[in-house]
Protein backbone atom coordinates (compact mmCIF):
# COMPACT_ATOMS: atom_id res chain seq x y z
CA UNK A 1 0.00 0.00 0.00
CA UNK A 2 1.36 3.37 -0.94
CA UNK A 3 1.04 5.11 2.40
CA UNK A 4 3.76 7.50 3.41
CA UNK A 5 5.02 8.38 6.86
CA UNK A 6 4.41 11.97 7.91
CA UNK A 7 5.21 13.92 10.97
CA UNK A 8 1.95 13.49 12.83
CA UNK A 9 -0.13 11.72 10.22
CA UNK A 10 -0.08 9.28 7.33
CA UNK A 11 -1.66 9.95 3.96
CA UNK A 12 -3.47 7.18 2.15
CA UNK A 13 -5.71 7.28 -0.91
CA UNK A 14 -9.24 5.90 -0.61
CA UNK A 15 -10.15 5.48 -4.24
CA UNK A 16 -9.78 8.12 -6.94
CA UNK A 17 -11.33 11.12 -5.19
CA UNK A 18 -10.66 10.74 -1.45
CA UNK A 19 -7.52 11.03 0.68
CA UNK A 20 -7.38 9.81 4.27
CA UNK A 21 -5.13 11.56 6.76
CA UNK A 22 -4.64 9.31 9.81
CA UNK A 23 -3.45 10.86 13.05
CA UNK A 24 -3.43 7.69 15.15
CA UNK A 25 -5.00 4.27 15.47
CA UNK A 26 -6.93 4.87 18.70
CA UNK A 27 -9.41 7.65 19.34
CA UNK A 28 -8.52 9.86 22.28
CA UNK A 29 -8.94 13.52 23.02
CA UNK A 30 -5.39 14.45 21.97
CA UNK A 31 -5.54 12.63 18.62
CA UNK A 32 -9.03 13.96 17.93
CA UNK A 33 -7.92 17.52 18.70
CA UNK A 34 -5.25 17.19 16.01
CA UNK A 35 -7.90 16.03 13.52
CA UNK A 36 -9.99 19.15 14.16
CA UNK A 37 -6.93 21.42 14.11
CA UNK A 38 -5.97 20.04 10.69
CA UNK A 39 -9.52 20.53 9.37
CA UNK A 40 -9.54 24.08 10.72
CA UNK A 41 -6.21 24.82 9.04
CA UNK A 42 -7.42 23.50 5.66
CA UNK A 43 -10.52 25.68 5.91
CA UNK A 44 -8.38 28.66 6.93
CA UNK A 45 -6.00 28.38 3.97
CA UNK A 46 -9.01 27.78 1.67
CA UNK A 47 -7.21 25.08 -0.25
CA UNK A 48 -8.75 24.83 -3.73
CA UNK A 49 -10.04 21.63 -5.31
CA UNK A 50 -11.42 20.24 -2.05
CA UNK A 51 -15.10 19.26 -2.05
CA UNK A 52 -15.66 17.95 1.48
CA UNK A 53 -13.76 17.48 4.74
CA UNK A 54 -14.88 14.57 6.92
CA UNK A 55 -13.34 14.53 10.39
CA UNK A 56 -13.53 11.25 12.31
CA UNK A 57 -12.15 10.15 15.67
CA UNK A 58 -8.56 9.70 14.52
CA UNK A 59 -8.63 10.66 10.84
CA UNK A 60 -9.60 13.36 8.41
CA UNK A 61 -10.92 12.49 4.94
CA UNK A 62 -10.66 14.90 2.04
CA UNK A 63 -12.98 14.53 -0.94
CA UNK A 64 -11.23 16.26 -3.80
CA UNK A 65 -11.70 17.14 -7.42
CA UNK A 66 -9.27 14.73 -9.13
CA UNK A 67 -9.20 16.57 -12.51
CA UNK A 68 -8.32 19.78 -10.62
CA UNK A 69 -5.33 18.07 -8.98
CA UNK A 70 -4.15 16.47 -12.22
CA UNK A 71 -1.09 18.61 -12.78
CA UNK A 72 0.83 18.91 -16.01
CA UNK A 73 3.71 16.78 -14.67
CA UNK A 74 1.81 13.51 -15.12
CA UNK A 75 1.98 12.92 -11.38
CA UNK A 76 -1.19 11.15 -10.15
CA UNK A 77 -3.62 13.67 -8.61
CA UNK A 78 -3.58 11.99 -5.19
CA UNK A 79 0.20 12.34 -5.00
CA UNK A 80 0.03 15.93 -6.16
CA UNK A 81 -2.49 16.74 -3.44
CA UNK A 82 -0.54 14.73 -0.83
CA UNK A 83 2.60 16.71 -1.67
CA UNK A 84 0.73 19.98 -1.34
CA UNK A 85 -0.66 18.87 2.04
CA UNK A 86 2.83 18.00 3.28
CA UNK A 87 3.93 21.52 2.40
CA UNK A 88 0.90 23.06 4.12
CA UNK A 89 1.56 21.03 7.27
CA UNK A 90 5.34 21.47 7.21
CA UNK A 91 4.84 23.90 10.05
CA UNK A 92 2.46 22.35 12.57
CA UNK A 93 -1.05 23.84 12.40
CA UNK A 94 -1.64 26.75 14.71
CA UNK A 95 -5.38 26.66 14.09
CA UNK A 96 -7.35 25.75 17.18
CA UNK A 97 -9.12 22.42 17.46
CA UNK A 98 -11.83 24.10 19.49
CA UNK A 99 -14.83 25.31 17.53
CA UNK A 100 -15.34 27.78 20.39
CA UNK A 101 -18.92 26.61 20.92
CA UNK A 102 -20.31 25.05 24.05
CA UNK A 103 -23.76 23.50 23.57
CA UNK A 104 -25.93 22.54 26.54
CA UNK A 105 -28.20 19.56 25.92
CA UNK A 106 -31.10 19.03 28.35
CA UNK A 107 -31.76 15.34 29.12
CA UNK A 108 -34.54 13.58 30.95
CA UNK A 109 -32.78 10.51 32.39
CA UNK A 110 -34.07 7.03 33.21
CA UNK A 111 -37.52 5.49 33.30
CA UNK A 112 -39.33 5.47 30.00
CA UNK A 113 -36.83 8.06 28.73
CA UNK A 114 -33.77 5.86 29.25
CA UNK A 115 -34.61 2.23 29.80
CA UNK A 116 -30.97 1.13 30.21
CA UNK A 117 -30.03 3.65 32.92
CA UNK A 118 -30.32 1.09 35.71
CA UNK A 119 -28.26 -1.45 33.74
CA UNK A 120 -25.54 1.16 33.12
CA UNK A 121 -25.54 2.14 36.81
CA UNK A 122 -25.35 -1.44 38.00
CA UNK A 123 -22.57 -2.19 35.48
CA UNK A 124 -20.69 0.78 37.00
CA UNK A 125 -21.48 -0.42 40.55
CA UNK A 126 -23.26 2.84 41.46
CA UNK A 127 -26.87 3.92 41.80
CA UNK A 128 -28.88 5.61 39.05
CA UNK A 129 -28.71 9.08 40.61
CA UNK A 130 -24.94 8.83 40.79
CA UNK A 131 -24.76 7.67 37.13
CA UNK A 132 -26.84 10.71 36.09
CA UNK A 133 -24.60 13.01 38.14
CA UNK A 134 -21.46 11.60 36.53
CA UNK A 135 -22.94 11.84 33.02
CA UNK A 136 -23.89 15.47 33.65
CA UNK A 137 -20.58 16.35 35.26
CA UNK A 138 -18.55 15.72 32.15
CA UNK A 139 -17.58 18.18 29.48
CA UNK A 140 -17.65 16.38 26.15
CA UNK A 141 -16.08 16.99 22.78
CA UNK A 142 -17.84 16.18 19.49
CA UNK A 143 -15.21 13.83 18.02
CA UNK A 144 -17.21 13.34 14.83
CA UNK A 145 -20.70 13.10 13.38
CA UNK A 146 -21.59 9.93 11.53
CA UNK A 147 -23.80 6.83 11.43
CA UNK A 148 -26.77 9.11 10.66
CA UNK A 149 -27.16 12.84 9.93
CA UNK A 150 -26.46 14.77 13.13
CA UNK A 151 -25.39 11.77 15.29
CA UNK A 152 -22.52 13.00 17.51
CA UNK A 153 -19.81 10.73 18.87
CA UNK A 154 -18.81 12.42 22.14
CA UNK A 155 -15.47 11.96 23.91
CA UNK A 156 -15.03 12.61 27.61
CA UNK A 157 -17.29 9.99 29.20
CA UNK A 158 -16.48 9.20 32.85
CA UNK A 159 -14.57 5.86 32.71
CA UNK A 160 -16.89 4.28 35.29
CA UNK A 161 -19.74 4.69 32.79
CA UNK A 162 -17.98 2.89 29.94
CA UNK A 163 -19.98 -0.16 28.88
CA UNK A 164 -19.67 -2.48 25.86
CA UNK A 165 -22.44 -2.19 23.26
CA UNK A 166 -25.44 -4.49 23.38
CA UNK A 167 -24.91 -7.88 21.75
CA UNK A 168 -28.25 -7.48 19.95
CA UNK A 169 -28.90 -3.98 18.60
CA UNK A 170 -32.45 -2.66 18.99
CA UNK A 171 -34.39 -2.23 15.76
CA UNK A 172 -35.87 1.08 16.94
CA UNK A 173 -34.30 3.62 19.24
CA UNK A 174 -36.53 6.65 19.96
CA UNK A 175 -35.41 10.02 18.55
CA UNK A 176 -33.34 12.14 20.96
CA UNK A 177 -32.12 9.10 22.91
CA UNK A 178 -28.89 9.78 24.81
CA UNK A 179 -26.84 6.63 24.89
CA UNK A 180 -23.58 5.01 25.90
CA UNK A 181 -21.55 2.78 23.56
CA UNK A 182 -18.17 1.66 24.81
CA UNK A 183 -16.14 4.70 25.88
CA UNK A 184 -18.37 7.17 24.06
CA UNK A 185 -21.73 8.76 24.55
CA UNK A 186 -23.97 9.89 21.71
CA UNK A 187 -27.44 11.09 20.78
CA UNK A 188 -29.78 9.48 18.24
CA UNK A 189 -31.16 12.35 16.11
CA UNK A 190 -34.13 10.35 14.84
CA UNK A 191 -35.67 6.91 15.22
CA UNK A 192 -32.94 4.51 14.19
CA UNK A 193 -31.73 1.00 14.90
CA UNK A 194 -28.96 1.03 17.50
CA UNK A 195 -26.84 -1.01 19.86
CA UNK A 196 -25.97 1.61 22.47
CA UNK A 197 -27.40 1.70 26.00
CA UNK A 198 -30.20 4.25 26.34
CA UNK A 199 -29.91 6.39 29.49
CA UNK A 200 -32.18 9.32 28.67
CA UNK A 201 -33.78 11.49 26.01
CA UNK A 202 -33.38 15.09 24.95
CA UNK A 203 -36.36 17.06 23.64
CA UNK A 204 -34.14 19.29 21.48
CA UNK A 205 -33.80 18.61 17.78
CA UNK A 206 -30.36 17.39 16.71
CA UNK A 207 -30.93 17.65 12.98
CA UNK A 208 -33.34 19.73 10.94
CA UNK A 209 -32.90 20.22 7.20
CA UNK A 210 -34.66 23.59 7.42
CA UNK A 211 -32.19 24.92 10.02
CA UNK A 212 -28.88 26.60 9.12
CA UNK A 213 -26.70 24.81 9.97
CA UNK A 214 -28.92 21.71 9.83
CA UNK A 215 -27.08 20.00 12.68
CA UNK A 216 -27.24 21.24 16.30
CA UNK A 217 -23.67 20.04 16.82
CA UNK A 218 -20.54 20.34 14.71
CA UNK A 219 -17.25 18.46 14.96
CA UNK A 220 -15.06 20.09 17.63
CA UNK A 221 -17.96 21.52 19.66
CA UNK A 222 -18.02 21.08 23.43
CA UNK A 223 -21.19 19.60 24.94
CA UNK A 224 -22.61 19.61 28.47
CA UNK A 225 -25.69 17.68 29.58
CA UNK A 226 -28.25 19.11 32.02
CA UNK A 227 -30.71 16.83 33.80
CA UNK A 228 -34.36 17.85 33.40
CA UNK A 229 -37.61 16.29 34.61
CA UNK A 230 -40.45 14.96 32.48
CA UNK A 231 -42.39 18.20 32.85
CA UNK A 232 -39.55 20.30 31.45
CA UNK A 233 -39.03 17.70 28.70
CA UNK A 234 -42.65 18.16 27.58
CA UNK A 235 -42.41 21.95 27.82
CA UNK A 236 -39.29 22.10 25.62
CA UNK A 237 -40.72 19.55 23.16
CA UNK A 238 -43.93 21.58 22.91
CA UNK A 239 -42.04 24.84 22.39
CA UNK A 240 -39.99 23.20 19.62
CA UNK A 241 -43.10 21.91 17.89
CA UNK A 242 -44.50 25.44 17.61
Amino acid sequence: MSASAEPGFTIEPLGETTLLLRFGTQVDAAVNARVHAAAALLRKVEMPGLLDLIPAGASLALHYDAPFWAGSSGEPPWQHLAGTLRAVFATPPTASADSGRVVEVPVCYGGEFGCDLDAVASHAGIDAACAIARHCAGEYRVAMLGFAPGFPYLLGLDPTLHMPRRAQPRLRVPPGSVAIGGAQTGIYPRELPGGWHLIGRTPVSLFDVEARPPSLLAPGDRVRFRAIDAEEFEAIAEANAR
Partner: protein
Amino acid sequence: MSVAVLKPGWLTTVQDRGRHGYANLGVGSAGPMDEVALRLANLLVGNDEGAGALEFTAQGPRLRFAQAARIAVTGAAFEVRHDDTLLPLWQSHVLPAGTTLDLGTATQGLRGYLAVAGGFALAPVLGSVATDLNSALGPFEGRALRAGDSLDLNALPGAELGSAPKLRWSLDPRPWFDPDPAHPIHLIAGTHTDALDPASRAALHQAEFRLARDSNRVGLRLDGPRLALSAPLELASEATAFGTVQLPPGGQPIVLMAEHPTTGGYPRIGQVAAIDLPRLAQRRPGDRLRFLTIDQDEAQTRYLARERELATLAAAIAQRLQT
Protein backbone atom coordinates in the same frame (compact mmCIF):
# COMPACT_ATOMS: atom_id res chain seq x y z
CA MET B 1 -47.74 20.73 -16.23
CA SER B 2 -46.54 17.59 -14.60
CA VAL B 3 -45.64 13.93 -14.77
CA ALA B 4 -48.04 11.62 -12.91
CA VAL B 5 -46.84 8.33 -11.45
CA LEU B 6 -49.40 5.69 -12.46
CA LYS B 7 -47.31 2.74 -11.24
CA PRO B 8 -44.13 3.26 -9.23
CA GLY B 9 -42.13 0.25 -10.43
CA TRP B 10 -39.99 -1.73 -8.02
CA LEU B 11 -37.81 1.10 -6.65
CA THR B 12 -37.95 4.49 -8.35
CA THR B 13 -36.24 7.50 -6.79
CA VAL B 14 -35.20 10.99 -7.81
CA GLN B 15 -31.41 11.30 -7.94
CA ASP B 16 -28.94 13.96 -8.94
CA ARG B 17 -25.16 13.74 -8.57
CA GLY B 18 -25.52 13.71 -4.79
CA ARG B 19 -25.62 15.84 -1.69
CA HIS B 20 -22.15 17.22 -1.04
CA GLY B 21 -20.73 19.51 1.60
CA TYR B 22 -22.51 18.06 4.64
CA ALA B 23 -20.54 14.84 5.16
CA ASN B 24 -18.92 16.38 8.27
CA LEU B 25 -22.44 16.43 9.79
CA GLY B 26 -23.02 12.76 8.97
CA VAL B 27 -25.06 13.46 5.83
CA GLY B 28 -24.22 11.00 3.06
CA SER B 29 -24.22 12.00 -0.59
CA ALA B 30 -26.73 9.43 -1.94
CA GLY B 31 -27.02 10.02 -5.71
CA PRO B 32 -27.18 7.57 -8.62
CA MET B 33 -25.84 4.03 -8.48
CA ASP B 34 -24.79 4.34 -12.15
CA GLU B 35 -23.54 7.91 -12.25
CA VAL B 36 -22.47 7.81 -15.90
CA ALA B 37 -25.92 6.70 -17.09
CA LEU B 38 -27.58 9.55 -15.15
CA ARG B 39 -25.16 12.13 -16.56
CA LEU B 40 -25.67 10.90 -20.14
CA ALA B 41 -29.47 10.85 -19.82
CA ASN B 42 -29.35 14.50 -18.78
CA LEU B 43 -26.93 15.45 -21.55
CA LEU B 44 -29.15 13.81 -24.17
CA VAL B 45 -32.03 16.16 -23.31
CA GLY B 46 -29.85 19.26 -23.01
CA ASN B 47 -29.84 19.41 -19.19
CA ASP B 48 -26.92 20.04 -16.91
CA GLU B 49 -25.37 16.58 -16.47
CA GLY B 50 -26.03 16.69 -12.74
CA ALA B 51 -29.74 17.56 -12.92
CA GLY B 52 -32.31 15.48 -11.06
CA ALA B 53 -33.54 12.43 -12.97
CA LEU B 54 -35.41 9.24 -12.09
CA GLU B 55 -33.49 6.11 -11.16
CA PHE B 56 -35.58 2.97 -11.49
CA THR B 57 -34.74 -0.62 -10.69
CA ALA B 58 -35.54 -3.94 -12.42
CA GLN B 59 -39.17 -2.94 -13.03
CA GLY B 60 -39.65 0.63 -14.21
CA PRO B 61 -42.52 2.97 -13.43
CA ARG B 62 -45.50 3.88 -15.64
CA LEU B 63 -45.82 7.63 -16.07
CA ARG B 64 -48.28 10.01 -17.73
CA PHE B 65 -46.98 13.24 -19.22
CA ALA B 66 -49.59 16.01 -19.06
CA GLN B 67 -47.61 18.08 -21.54
CA ALA B 68 -45.18 17.44 -24.36
CA ALA B 69 -41.68 16.70 -23.13
CA ARG B 70 -38.27 15.76 -24.43
CA ILE B 71 -36.96 12.68 -22.63
CA ALA B 72 -34.08 10.22 -22.73
CA VAL B 73 -33.65 6.85 -21.04
CA THR B 74 -30.22 5.32 -20.36
CA GLY B 75 -28.76 2.59 -18.18
CA ALA B 76 -29.97 -1.00 -18.17
CA ALA B 77 -31.79 -2.52 -21.18
CA PHE B 78 -35.39 -1.68 -20.25
CA GLU B 79 -38.24 -2.32 -22.67
CA VAL B 80 -39.63 1.20 -22.78
CA ARG B 81 -42.98 1.76 -24.47
CA HIS B 82 -44.90 4.89 -25.19
CA ASP B 83 -48.42 3.73 -25.70
CA ASP B 84 -47.66 0.66 -27.84
CA THR B 85 -44.48 1.83 -29.53
CA LEU B 86 -41.12 0.50 -28.37
CA LEU B 87 -38.82 3.44 -27.61
CA PRO B 88 -35.05 3.06 -28.14
CA LEU B 89 -32.78 3.96 -25.22
CA TRP B 90 -29.69 6.25 -25.29
CA GLN B 91 -31.59 8.67 -27.50
CA SER B 92 -33.62 11.83 -27.16
CA HIS B 93 -37.38 11.58 -27.87
CA VAL B 94 -40.19 14.11 -27.90
CA LEU B 95 -43.37 12.77 -26.28
CA PRO B 96 -46.66 14.46 -27.17
CA ALA B 97 -48.92 15.75 -24.41
CA GLY B 98 -50.95 12.98 -22.79
CA THR B 99 -48.39 10.23 -23.45
CA THR B 100 -48.26 7.24 -21.15
CA LEU B 101 -44.67 6.07 -20.80
CA ASP B 102 -44.10 2.54 -19.55
CA LEU B 103 -40.50 1.98 -18.53
CA GLY B 104 -41.04 -1.79 -18.55
CA THR B 105 -38.61 -4.37 -17.24
CA ALA B 106 -34.87 -4.67 -17.58
CA THR B 107 -33.82 -7.53 -19.85
CA GLN B 108 -30.13 -6.88 -19.06
CA GLY B 109 -28.65 -4.88 -16.22
CA LEU B 110 -30.66 -3.51 -13.30
CA ARG B 111 -30.94 0.28 -13.16
CA GLY B 112 -32.36 2.76 -15.64
CA TYR B 113 -32.41 6.56 -15.75
CA LEU B 114 -35.04 8.87 -17.17
CA ALA B 115 -34.18 12.50 -17.74
CA VAL B 116 -36.69 15.13 -18.88
CA ALA B 117 -35.60 18.31 -20.66
CA GLY B 118 -35.72 21.25 -18.26
CA GLY B 119 -35.64 18.92 -15.29
CA PHE B 120 -38.08 18.28 -12.47
CA ALA B 121 -39.24 21.29 -10.45
CA LEU B 122 -38.25 20.01 -7.01
CA ALA B 123 -37.00 21.92 -3.99
CA PRO B 124 -33.42 20.89 -3.15
CA VAL B 125 -32.82 19.54 0.35
CA LEU B 126 -29.38 20.60 1.61
CA GLY B 127 -28.48 21.60 -1.93
CA SER B 128 -29.56 18.41 -3.69
CA VAL B 129 -32.62 16.53 -4.96
CA ALA B 130 -30.94 13.16 -4.40
CA THR B 131 -33.13 10.73 -2.46
CA ASP B 132 -31.50 9.27 0.66
CA LEU B 133 -33.91 6.48 1.64
CA ASN B 134 -32.34 5.59 4.99
CA SER B 135 -31.97 9.15 6.23
CA ALA B 136 -35.31 10.17 4.69
CA LEU B 137 -33.73 13.16 2.95
CA GLY B 138 -34.66 14.56 -0.44
CA PRO B 139 -37.83 15.03 -2.50
CA PHE B 140 -40.99 13.20 -1.34
CA GLU B 141 -39.48 13.21 2.16
CA GLY B 142 -36.72 10.95 1.00
CA ARG B 143 -38.90 8.01 -0.03
CA ALA B 144 -39.30 6.07 -3.25
CA LEU B 145 -42.04 7.23 -5.64
CA ARG B 146 -45.56 5.85 -5.20
CA ALA B 147 -48.59 5.64 -7.46
CA GLY B 148 -50.40 8.97 -7.27
CA ASP B 149 -47.23 11.07 -6.91
CA SER B 150 -46.84 13.91 -9.34
CA LEU B 151 -43.65 15.64 -10.44
CA ASP B 152 -43.81 19.14 -11.87
CA LEU B 153 -41.51 20.00 -14.75
CA ASN B 154 -39.49 23.16 -15.14
CA ALA B 155 -40.69 25.25 -18.05
CA LEU B 156 -38.32 25.32 -21.02
CA PRO B 157 -37.80 28.86 -22.29
CA GLY B 158 -39.16 29.21 -25.81
CA ALA B 159 -39.45 25.49 -26.33
CA GLU B 160 -41.81 24.38 -29.11
CA LEU B 161 -41.58 20.67 -28.51
CA GLY B 162 -44.64 19.86 -30.60
CA SER B 163 -42.80 20.83 -33.76
CA ALA B 164 -39.33 19.68 -32.69
CA PRO B 165 -37.62 17.63 -35.38
CA LYS B 166 -37.17 13.95 -34.69
CA LEU B 167 -33.55 13.26 -33.77
CA ARG B 168 -32.13 10.48 -35.87
CA TRP B 169 -29.02 9.74 -33.83
CA SER B 170 -28.40 7.90 -30.64
CA LEU B 171 -25.46 7.15 -28.36
CA ASP B 172 -23.64 3.86 -28.56
CA PRO B 173 -24.27 2.43 -25.08
CA ARG B 174 -21.41 -0.05 -25.29
CA PRO B 175 -18.66 1.86 -23.55
CA TRP B 176 -21.11 2.97 -20.85
CA PHE B 177 -23.33 -0.01 -20.27
CA ASP B 178 -21.76 -3.42 -19.71
CA PRO B 179 -24.06 -6.00 -18.11
CA ASP B 180 -21.73 -8.97 -18.73
CA PRO B 181 -21.05 -10.56 -15.30
CA ALA B 182 -18.04 -12.36 -16.79
CA HIS B 183 -16.14 -9.07 -16.98
CA PRO B 184 -13.98 -8.56 -13.88
CA ILE B 185 -14.36 -5.62 -11.52
CA HIS B 186 -11.11 -3.77 -10.86
CA LEU B 187 -10.13 -3.59 -7.21
CA ILE B 188 -7.54 -1.33 -5.59
CA ALA B 189 -5.86 -2.71 -2.45
CA GLY B 190 -7.42 -1.40 0.76
CA THR B 191 -5.91 -0.41 4.09
CA HIS B 192 -6.42 -3.90 5.50
CA THR B 193 -6.02 -6.13 2.42
CA ASP B 194 -2.71 -7.33 3.85
CA ALA B 195 -4.41 -8.13 7.17
CA LEU B 196 -6.45 -10.89 5.49
CA ASP B 197 -5.22 -14.41 6.15
CA PRO B 198 -3.38 -15.92 3.13
CA ALA B 199 -6.30 -18.09 2.03
CA SER B 200 -8.70 -15.15 2.18
CA ARG B 201 -6.31 -12.89 0.29
CA ALA B 202 -6.08 -15.49 -2.47
CA ALA B 203 -9.87 -15.96 -2.47
CA LEU B 204 -10.52 -12.23 -2.78
CA HIS B 205 -8.59 -12.15 -6.04
CA GLN B 206 -9.39 -15.57 -7.45
CA ALA B 207 -12.76 -16.74 -6.18
CA GLU B 208 -16.10 -16.15 -7.83
CA PHE B 209 -18.57 -14.18 -5.73
CA ARG B 210 -22.27 -13.64 -6.27
CA LEU B 211 -24.36 -10.61 -5.44
CA ALA B 212 -26.57 -11.50 -2.49
CA ARG B 213 -30.33 -10.92 -2.58
CA ASP B 214 -30.23 -8.41 0.26
CA SER B 215 -27.99 -6.03 -1.69
CA ASN B 216 -29.34 -2.51 -2.06
CA ARG B 217 -28.39 1.13 -2.71
CA VAL B 218 -26.33 1.17 0.51
CA GLY B 219 -24.20 -1.80 -0.31
CA LEU B 220 -23.77 -5.01 -2.26
CA ARG B 221 -23.25 -8.11 -0.13
CA LEU B 222 -21.07 -10.74 -1.74
CA ASP B 223 -21.87 -14.42 -1.35
CA GLY B 224 -18.88 -16.70 -1.78
CA PRO B 225 -16.00 -17.83 0.36
CA ARG B 226 -16.07 -16.33 3.85
CA LEU B 227 -13.02 -14.13 4.35
CA ALA B 228 -11.09 -13.73 7.59
CA LEU B 229 -8.29 -11.60 8.99
CA SER B 230 -5.09 -13.18 10.28
CA ALA B 231 -5.83 -11.49 13.61
CA PRO B 232 -8.79 -9.41 14.75
CA LEU B 233 -8.48 -5.64 14.42
CA GLU B 234 -10.04 -2.96 16.63
CA LEU B 235 -10.54 0.00 14.35
CA ALA B 236 -11.64 3.58 14.80
CA SER B 237 -14.51 4.63 12.54
CA GLU B 238 -13.38 6.74 9.61
CA ALA B 239 -14.71 8.02 6.32
CA THR B 240 -15.84 5.52 3.71
CA ALA B 241 -16.28 6.03 -0.02
CA PHE B 242 -18.47 4.74 -2.84
CA GLY B 243 -16.79 1.43 -3.71
CA THR B 244 -15.10 0.74 -0.36
CA VAL B 245 -15.14 -3.02 0.32
CA GLN B 246 -15.69 -3.63 4.03
CA LEU B 247 -15.37 -6.92 5.89
CA PRO B 248 -17.77 -7.25 8.84
CA PRO B 249 -17.06 -9.95 11.46
CA GLY B 250 -19.22 -12.55 9.70
CA GLY B 251 -16.71 -12.64 6.83
CA GLN B 252 -19.12 -11.65 4.06
CA PRO B 253 -17.67 -8.65 2.16
CA ILE B 254 -19.88 -5.61 1.49
CA VAL B 255 -19.19 -3.16 -1.33
CA LEU B 256 -20.44 0.24 -0.20
CA MET B 257 -22.54 1.91 -2.88
CA ALA B 258 -24.26 5.26 -3.55
CA GLU B 259 -26.13 5.51 -0.25
CA HIS B 260 -23.27 4.41 2.00
CA PRO B 261 -22.94 6.02 5.44
CA THR B 262 -20.26 8.71 5.73
CA THR B 263 -18.16 6.63 8.15
CA GLY B 264 -17.56 3.00 8.98
CA GLY B 265 -15.46 0.96 11.36
CA TYR B 266 -15.02 -2.40 9.63
CA PRO B 267 -11.74 -3.48 8.02
CA ARG B 268 -11.35 -2.21 4.43
CA ILE B 269 -10.12 -4.97 2.20
CA GLY B 270 -10.33 -3.10 -1.09
CA GLN B 271 -11.70 -0.22 -3.09
CA VAL B 272 -13.58 -0.79 -6.35
CA ALA B 273 -12.06 1.35 -9.11
CA ALA B 274 -14.36 4.27 -9.96
CA ILE B 275 -14.39 3.31 -13.65
CA ASP B 276 -16.10 0.02 -12.71
CA LEU B 277 -18.73 1.37 -10.30
CA PRO B 278 -21.36 1.91 -13.05
CA ARG B 279 -20.72 -1.66 -14.26
CA LEU B 280 -21.08 -2.98 -10.71
CA ALA B 281 -24.29 -0.96 -10.21
CA GLN B 282 -25.82 -2.83 -13.15
CA ARG B 283 -25.16 -6.31 -11.74
CA ARG B 284 -28.26 -8.10 -10.48
CA PRO B 285 -28.70 -10.12 -7.31
CA GLY B 286 -27.39 -13.58 -8.11
CA ASP B 287 -24.96 -12.32 -10.76
CA ARG B 288 -21.38 -13.54 -10.66
CA LEU B 289 -18.55 -11.23 -9.70
CA ARG B 290 -14.79 -11.54 -9.90
CA PHE B 291 -12.18 -9.01 -8.87
CA LEU B 292 -9.05 -8.07 -10.77
CA THR B 293 -6.29 -6.12 -9.04
CA ILE B 294 -5.51 -2.64 -10.27
CA ASP B 295 -2.91 -0.22 -8.99
CA GLN B 296 -4.11 3.04 -7.37
CA ASP B 297 -2.22 5.21 -9.88
CA GLU B 298 -3.51 3.25 -12.87
CA ALA B 299 -7.09 3.41 -11.53
CA GLN B 300 -6.83 7.17 -11.14
CA THR B 301 -5.32 7.57 -14.62
CA ARG B 302 -8.22 5.61 -16.13
CA TYR B 303 -10.73 7.63 -14.11
CA LEU B 304 -9.32 10.89 -15.47
CA ALA B 305 -9.38 9.45 -19.00
CA ARG B 306 -13.05 8.52 -18.58
CA GLU B 307 -13.87 12.01 -17.36
CA ARG B 308 -12.12 13.51 -20.40
CA GLU B 309 -14.04 11.15 -22.69
CA LEU B 310 -17.35 12.16 -21.06
CA ALA B 311 -16.48 15.86 -21.41
CA THR B 312 -15.77 15.37 -25.12
CA LEU B 313 -19.02 13.47 -25.53
CA ALA B 314 -20.95 16.16 -23.64
CA ALA B 315 -19.63 18.82 -26.00
CA ALA B 316 -20.52 16.70 -29.05
CA ILE B 317 -24.06 16.08 -27.77
CA ALA B 318 -24.57 19.77 -27.01
CA GLN B 319 -23.51 20.67 -30.53
CA ARG B 320 -25.89 18.15 -32.10
CA LEU B 321 -28.78 19.35 -29.98
CA GLN B 322 -28.25 22.86 -31.33
CA THR B 323 -28.41 21.91 -34.99
